[in-house]
């Protein structure tokens, strides 16, 4: 394929500028690294937060924070009858899933949660009833629909008491609310920080190359010609910062991996932290490059026009 001459020239020129500005960064490695490191830290923190919320969400689906109904059965109901009820419920369209908790399982869970441990062994008989945990489907998870479902289930003769776990839902929502607000505050700050850092770096770079800009304007350079290397610098800074950020996030999550495993172990969960996926990494790099370019663009737009040769 033969490119038109105009396009060929255009590509050659851009490639040259891109390489030149990369070379300029490479020739001052410690300075460039410092700038990239600052950008990396600013990028790593929101990425880390993003990962944390991702993991939190996975955790919350394991915990299942949506509305749950508990049906406490009469103590006279046999296990067989309970199993039959379970099957009947499972076929109802409003219900997503049901789980039967036998009195023995309920006691074991209580033992684990309360810390009363062996002391319960001294009880003469198991005082707990069998329980069926009911999870409504998506459409019946809101407060009203769940309450209507509750009314319906309450009418089954085996059920002594039906209860909606609103307390737990409220608690979980309160926690999620706090986390969401923290992330919103930090994320906004850090997004701003990336733009400021890149913009500031490019601004100071423009300032320190003021003489060069004036001289090239003097001998007939267009604004586009002058802008180009700065935009590429911004791009490279952002990209380098993103690569470093990726490394930082991986290191940080490696630090957390084992403690989280241990904690999950204590709760009999096999939950483990997920780190950045391939697509995550790609979007981090793209975000870094885009922010770098945008920051450079803003700085160049504001500060390049102010430099006129005299």
């Amino acid at each position, binding site marked *: 394929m033969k490119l038109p001459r105009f396009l060929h020239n255009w590509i050659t*020129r851009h490639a040259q500028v891109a390489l030149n500005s990369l070379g300029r960064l490479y020739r001052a490695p410690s300075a460039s690294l410092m700038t990239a490191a600052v950008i990396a830290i600013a990028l790593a923190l929101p990425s880390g937060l993003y990962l944390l919320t991702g993991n939190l969400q996975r955790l919350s689906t394991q915990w299942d924070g949506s509305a749950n109904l508990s049906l406490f059965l009469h103590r006279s109901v046999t296990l067989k009858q309970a199993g039959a009820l379970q099957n009947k419920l499972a076929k109802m369209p409003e219900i997503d899933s049901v789980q039967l908790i036998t009195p023995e399982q309920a006691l074991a869970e209580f033992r684990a949660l309360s810390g009363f441990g062996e002391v319960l062994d001294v009880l003469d008989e198991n005082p707990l009833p069998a329980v069926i945990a009911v999870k409504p489907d998506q459409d019946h998870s809101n407060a009203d629909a769940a309450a209507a479902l509750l009314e319906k289930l309450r009418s089954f003769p085996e059920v002594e008491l039906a209860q909606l776990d609103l307390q737990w839902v409220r608690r979980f929502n309160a926690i999620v609310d706090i986390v969401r607000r923290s992330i919103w505050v930090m994320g906004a700050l850090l997004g701003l920080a990336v733009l400021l850092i890149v913009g500031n770096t490019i601004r100071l770079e423009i300032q320190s190359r003021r*003489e*060069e800009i004036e*001289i090239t304007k*003097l*001998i007939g350079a*267009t604004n586009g*010609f002058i802008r180009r290397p700065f935009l590429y610098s911004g791009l490279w800074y952002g990209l380098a910062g993103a690569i470093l950020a990726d490394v930082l996030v991986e290191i940080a999550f490696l630090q957390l991996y084992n403690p989280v495993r241990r904690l999950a172990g204590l709760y009999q969960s096999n939950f483990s932290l997920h780190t950045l996926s391939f697509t995550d990494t790609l979007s981090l790099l793209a975000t870094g490059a885009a922010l770098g370019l945008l920051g450079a663009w803003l700085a160049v737009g504001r500060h390049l026009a102010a430099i006129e040769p*005299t």
Partner: protein
Amino acid sequence: MIRFDNVYKRYPGGRDALQGVSFHLHAGAMAFLTGHSGAGKSTLLKLVALLEHATRGQLFLDGENLSQTSRRGIPYVRRKIGMIFQNYRLLFDRTVFDNVALPLVIAGYRHQDIGRRVRAALDKVGLLDRERALPITLSGGEQQRVGIARAVVNKPPLLLADEPTGNLDPELSRDIMHLFEQFNQVGVSVLIASHDLDLIATLPYTQLQLHHGRLVKSATGTDT
């Protein structure tokens, strides 16, 4: 090539650098611009290169009315002009070669052409052996000559020189003036601001003399 029509230039601050200047430098002509320090020589050259804008009056470059040039058009006007600055204005972090190559790079010349033209220009000012040097390692006169090479490298139709021999010894000054004459002979219009009255007196070109911003002596350039 250059026509001034009753041009005034007042700088912000109220200093009148040029007052009612009118003259016409024909295409292919060569002329000197003289006058005391602060007379307005550099200002006149800056108006031509659109580094400053006239307060009143009209000026034309190559038939184009410069007061009507848009911002986007300015770079293309400057590319028609080879300008030599009183204070050289070299890039101190680039080699002599890269400095001289700059106008060609800006104009988008091809790599091979650039090398050939730059070396030809450096040869003309006697600095071919210094192409890899940084300007900071050159003597004052050598820097001035790099500036001259940069101005002529893309063979512009007009050369503007502001005190091009201020830091050169008499012998080299004569050589450089001779170089300008050579350019003039192949059709380049040349306008040189200079204090070197003795040297100018030996050359047969028009003199435009400024005194506190007014043209006190002017004549249409005559080609040799």
